[in-house]
């Protein structure tokens, strides 16, 4: 495994975009629309601004900690105990993200294309893929991200452009949704949609040029935000605010609408293929992050065996029979609030306190 590979500026941005596109594939824009109805556009702009301000603050706080991620920073702040706590929470969050992604997307694939096959084969297909990518190392993961990011972006842009003819002003109004409170107070929980913020706390040690980290993070964030906005607008054309239908995968239903005349129809099949590769890349990144955190936590030298055992754990988790209502609860409640608490409370407070400590130490020196 290539342990010392460092990411260039474009590779890091591509990684952030891959993370975001996978969240878009897995119903996040629909969750926003479900909560804030026709006020979704305003809500996305609002949470985008709040998250951006948060990102700028976080990047400012991260500046003195060169080549350190939130695990190292927690170790600096509170010693081994805090490091263990933050590491375990991070592992649980990434594991939950990987679990939801595999189960949800395998379920979509099973429903749409492979209903004759047992879902376990689809899950194994993903697990073997991410295992191989992790055994080869970060370079292979990044190369797959770099390869797929363009196609993923293209699929989202085509979906957006194709739905423009269906978008009417009545789909986007009343502009503030159900009421102001719902859009701006309850809708704050939609901040979880900008999931890329989680990676800002972890990616710093992997970046080649530490000086560029602020710029590339902002660029990655802005591209992710634009993607979220475009997908939300497209989805509002299909899932009208007062609609009572809930899709298994909203982006897929949107892609099903795409037609280039009567000649080229059902392009969703191509998109699903692109998204499978995109999910592969995202899962590989997630598994890589978990491996790195465990390695730091337990001071393991060779993480190869960790990849095997983590893949086995993931496979075991996906084999637990859960029904769709439990999965929906995990996705829309457990996962959502876990991300919010992790980013805006745990990581931020740790970083803030570590920053204050660092300044004190510097002053004393």
């Amino acid at each position, binding site marked *: 495994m290539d342990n010392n590979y460092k990411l260039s500026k474009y590779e890091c941005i591509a990684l952030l975009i891959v993370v975001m596109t996978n969240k878009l594939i897995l119903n996040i824009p629909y969750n926003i629309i479900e909560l804030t*109805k*026709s*006020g979704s556009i305003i809500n996305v702009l609002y949470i985008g601004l709040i998250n951006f301000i948060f990102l700028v603050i976080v990047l400012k706080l991260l500046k003195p900690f060169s080549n350190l991620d939130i695990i190292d920073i927690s170790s600096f702040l509170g010693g081994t105990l805090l490091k263990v706590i933050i590491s375990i929470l991070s592992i649980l969050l990434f594991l939950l993200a990987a679990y939801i992604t595999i189960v949800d997307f395998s379920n979509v694939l099973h*429903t*749409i*294309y492979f*209903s*004759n096959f047992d879902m376990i084969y689809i899950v194994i297909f993903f697990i073997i893929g991410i295992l191989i990518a992790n055994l080869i190392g970060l370079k292979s993961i990044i190369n797959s991200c770099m390869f797929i990011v363009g196609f993923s972006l293209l699929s989202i842009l085509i979906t957006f452009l194709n739905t423009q003819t269906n978008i*009417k*002003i*009545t789909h986007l*109004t*009343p*502009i*503030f*949704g*159900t*009421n*102001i409170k719902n859009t701006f107070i309850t809708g704050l929980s939609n901040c979880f949609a900008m999931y890329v913020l989680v990676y800002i706390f972890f990616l710093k040690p992997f970046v080649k040029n530490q000086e560029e980290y602020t710029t590339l993070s902002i660029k990655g964030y802005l591209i992710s935000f634009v993607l979220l906005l475009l997908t939300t607008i497209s989805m509002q054309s*299909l899932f*009208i605010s*007062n*609609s*009572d*239908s809930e899709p298994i995968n909203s982006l897929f239903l949107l892609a*099903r*609408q795409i*037609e280039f005349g009567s000649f080229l*129809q*059902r392009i969703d099949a191509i998109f699903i293929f692109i998204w499978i590769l995109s999910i592969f890349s995202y899962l590989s990144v997630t598994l890589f992050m978990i491996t790195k955190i465990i390695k730091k936590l337990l001071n393991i030298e060779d993480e190869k065996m960790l990849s095997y055992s983590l893949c086995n754990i993931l496979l075991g988790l996906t084999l637990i029979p859960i029904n769709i209502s439990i999965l929906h609860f995990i996705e829309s409640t457990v996962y959502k609030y876990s991300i919010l608490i992790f980013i805006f409370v745990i990581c931020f407070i740790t970083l803030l306190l570590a920053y204050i400590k660092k300044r004190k130490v510097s002053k004393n020196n």
Partner: protein
Amino acid sequence: MKRLYLLIFFILIILLISTNSYQKTGLEHYYFVIGLGLDKLENNMLKISVQLSTTKDESSSSSGSSQTSSSEVYSVEARSINEGITILNNYLSKKLNLSHCSAVIFSEDLAKDGIKKYFNTLSNDIELRQSALLLVSSSTSYDFLKNISSSGETFSSRMFEHYTSSIDYTGFSYKSTLGDFFQNLHNDSIDPVCLYVSNISNTMQTSGLAIFKDDKMVGNISVSDSIAHLILTNNLETAIISMDNPFNENEKIDIEISLYKDTSYDIEILNNTPCIVAKIHPEGRILSADSTFNYSDSDNIKKIEDFCNSHISKLTEEYFINTTKVFNVDTVGYKDLYKSRFLTEEIFEKTSWDSIFKNSRFASITSSKINSSNLFNKD
């Protein structure tokens, strides 16, 4: 090197196992459904009819064309769509595939009972295209499929095409797809409509639009109303309207109209009554003329424009009465249009739109532009 050989060996084994020829499926294992019909029977039973594409050997024909295919219609009685398809799969000994289904037809009787439960089954079917046509037939859907099979169309997949293509030049048709109907069915601001077809002299002809209140068909409107529907929903391509000739009471004048600007609306609530004003902007080409007409005279054109304005206004006002007053439905989506003026849903709900909508008043302001399309401007 040893590892590489071992890896290749394992990959070959996996490939051999996964490419199991005993599970292969090809075109010969499927029957492709072109049209799916649903009829109501007694005791809550359904009659499910499928029109299947069957290949036809045309090598002996004098035309020499090989691009022909015929179709056959089969039907079964069942309690649900899926049960019916399972029975047909068993009976036909091939699996039915809906991925090339061009139209889904409900009989009027079934549509009047409500189609949501069937529609949810259909919209969950991954094979069925969102662009498939949705039709309501005045007769049974089985008769419809039988009649359309004997329509003389040589290529089975084109049998339903004229319903959608005629929208471009007649205005009598409406592109009612499964996808659009599904969206409107799940939207409480607009009532869905779909194409209504009836059996006239053993051919299936468009007879206007079927009007739904929620998921139940409440009635149908004429083809002239369907032109008004297209004008008011900004879906009009072109339509030919015949109106009184302003220069000769005994003659009619034909005008091909299209919209040069989208229809816009002013909606106000006055004395607890919604007042809807539609601003229509048609442009027209005179297709027929009588012997006394002079196209180069601007006064004559102005007179035709005035007649056209009043004709289109009357057409849309009649449509409004037929839908809103008779059936109490909102097929245009006035609720959404009015709602867009509010900042939040909460403020809009104070207007109690749903309860006052039936008392709405409608007026249309038409400003048409007329040109001659004839080779001679003056006779």
